[in-house]
């Protein structure tokens, strides 16, 4: 690079860091949202109480 290697490669490496950061952060954001969506769409199981007060004793 005629003595300019530090400046040329420095520019492209800095740019690459930005691009990678953006893509990785977007993937992470999407992953978190997808997990939240899956959790909110799961049916909530209501706990079954033993010895319910509605039971009648005969």
């Amino acid at each position, binding site marked *: 690079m005629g003595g*300019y290697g530090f400046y040329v490669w420095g520019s492209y490496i800095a740019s690459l860091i930005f691009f990678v950061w953006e893509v990785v952060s*977007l993937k992470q954001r999407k992953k978190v949202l997808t997990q939240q969506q899956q959790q909110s769409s799961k049916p909530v199981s209501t706990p079954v109480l033993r010895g319910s007060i509605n039971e009648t004793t005969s």
Partner: protein
Amino acid sequence: MFYPLAGKLIPWFAIPAALLFATGLFVGFFIAPTDFQQGDAYRIIFIHVPAAWMGMFLYVLMAIYAGIGWAFNARLSSMMASSLAITGAMFTAISLITGAFWGKPTWGTWWVWDARMTSTLILLFLYIGFISLQAAIDDARRADRAGAVLALVGVINVPIIYFSVQWWNTLHQGATIRLLQKPTIRGSMLAALLIMLAACWLYSVAVVLIRLRCIILEREQSASRFAEVGV
């Protein structure tokens, strides 16, 4: 309807972007010759100039979408503005950093307060201000309106950046390419520059669509939570 459509479009922009980046870098590094004045330092142009153009272009686009969202209460438009902001800020930061790397060997300094560089730094601050303002306001509609005001006021900075090299006696060189004039750079250099610009544009569309889908999901989830609580 837009959410699934955006999902289908993303690969059509992401894959060509990757291919064009590879092509542009190959042409820029292996086909374009060494500059007789600046030596190989000029090769920074292939990322610096497209990043600078994208930073300005995305700001104008962001202001347009924010304005439409505000004027017509169009939520998707406002969400698009929010989605554009981070990518635009990133490109502006890249143009400033690569400009500093280019300035050191050519001008002997990492930074000068000349018109173009100062106005580009202001553009970055405007982007950061827009992102921070939207993040600070919980209510999405109010955040969109506040962001729209800032974006529209700040758009005046873009022509200042563009014409700064003509209006003031600046250290920064003049335009590399002019629409109405024959380009003064060699064909292979121009080709690499335009290929990298196309790559940056396609990349921007892909990431903006991905982020927009995230924003749509976030707002839907937020609205569902409010509905459950009964607000």
